[in-house]
């Protein structure tokens, strides 16, 4: 059978999987980025217990292989009387993982805003939360955006791990097709092409974003 026809024939089965992969990625980013920002702010807090909590979440989220974190939640939450769907478990694990990495980029971004900005905010009457929100945070976010966008690409790739706890995402669908048709090489090549193409498109968007963000900060 012609390869293209074969691939086209599989697409209706793979597409729902891809949709779930994208949903999983989107939710992990939507939850993981704000969580990461919270962890970053807590890490800089004066109140020590906040620092410890942040440290624990970040070190577990980054120090463990994502797969181990996923299994850890998957096997232990039911014992603790919490029953969640595989998808929800995967979202939590991936968000945690994302948040832990994102917090490092947010911290770096916050640290890169010159001290003079904070002082100028204070002397302009913009102290505390207001100054943080309208002076420091926008500048920090701009610095953190390129690495965060890079992280988003990795999160998309990481969503493939959800396969191991039977979330019906792209890898699962490919596996299904493979075990029925035994055309493993072909179906995983197609899967690789799908991941690769979307990743490339995303990386392209990241480039454009970087250029746009940097524009008015450039000297002429």
């Amino acid at each position, binding site marked *: 059978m012609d390869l293209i026809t074969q691939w086209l024939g599989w697409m209706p089965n793979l597409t729902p999987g891809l949709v779930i992969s994208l949903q999983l990625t989107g939710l992990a980013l939507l939850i993981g980025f704000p969580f990461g920002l919270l962890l970053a702010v807590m890490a800089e807090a004066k109140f020590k217990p906040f620092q410890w909590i942040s440290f624990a979440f970040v070190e577990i989220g980054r120090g463990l292989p994502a797969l181990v974190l996923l299994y850890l939640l998957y096997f232990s939450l039911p014992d603790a009387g919490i029953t969640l769907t595989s998808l929800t478990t995967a979202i939590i694990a991936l968000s945690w993982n994302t948040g832990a990495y994102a917090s490092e980029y947010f911290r770096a971004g916050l640290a890169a805003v*010159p001290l*003079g*900005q904070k*002082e*100028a*905010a*204070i*002397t*302009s*009457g*913009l*102290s505390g939360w*207001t100054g943080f929100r*309208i*002076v420091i945070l*926008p*500048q920090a976010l*701009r610095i953190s955006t390129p690495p965060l966008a890079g992280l988003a690409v990795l999160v998309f790739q990481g969503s493939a791990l959800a396969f191991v706890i039977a979330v019906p995402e792209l890898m699962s669908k490919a596996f299904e097709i493979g075990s029925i048709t035994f055309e493993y090489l072909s179906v995983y090549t197609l899967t690789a092409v799908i991941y690769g193409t979307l990743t490339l498109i995303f990386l392209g968007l990241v480039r454009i974003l970087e250029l746009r963000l940097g524009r*008015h*900060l*450039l*000297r*002429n």
Partner: protein
Amino acid sequence: MGLSFGTKAPPTALSGEVEVSGLGKKYGVIEVLKDVNISMAEGEVVSVIGPSGAGKSTFLRCLNYLEKPSSGTIAIGGARVVAGEKLPDKASLDHLRRVTGMVFQSFNLFPHLTVMENITLPQRKVLGSSKEQAEEVANQLLKRVGLPEKAKAYPARLSGGQQQRIAIARALALSPKVMLFDEPTSALDPEIGLEVLAVMRDLADEGMTMLVVTHEMHFARDVSERIMVMGNGGVLEIGPSRQVMSEPQNDRTRQFLKAVLDR
């Protein structure tokens, strides 16, 4: 020496716009500010000079609590704070910062905001002004610092001198009673510095109370009524500008002036 401008008569009555007494600051055991006292009348301009490391910046930054002083009292434009172990209550601190405006050596404009936003945002957040009110004030200030056409520009597109003039406008927008300047021209080429000094001179003529850390001896002599010389964290001497410049009382002041003027 260059042109001299008519100086205002030294203030007689102490209306006490600024009253600082016994101001001290320690970093650990190192005392970087020792028993600094000064009182300034409304509308008075005082230049603070002295060698690098003398404590000039620390002094200025203690006045609005960018640094926490270890001891002393600060009273500025109706706000009053007594330094102690703990930070003063938020209301006093906010009051103190409301009555002071500050201009930094490195401008510190907010790079992600346009010139207009730099000037209007503090007004809207602090004074609760409407957008229209704030922009009205901003436009007047931009005219005053000679940059009415730059409202829509981002700071990175401006020269250093332009940025510093905008920074002055931003500080003025909150109608402070006292302006604090920490070496506002030190990061600029001398001829660019002049455009900033001109704005400051106008401000002084309009009656703003100003405390200016500077190495510009013309400005110190011609614009300020008094000069305060600092060294080693303390006040070496303070007196009418011309007198301090021509007949310094203190040996170290003399050495410092000689070094600066010979350059």
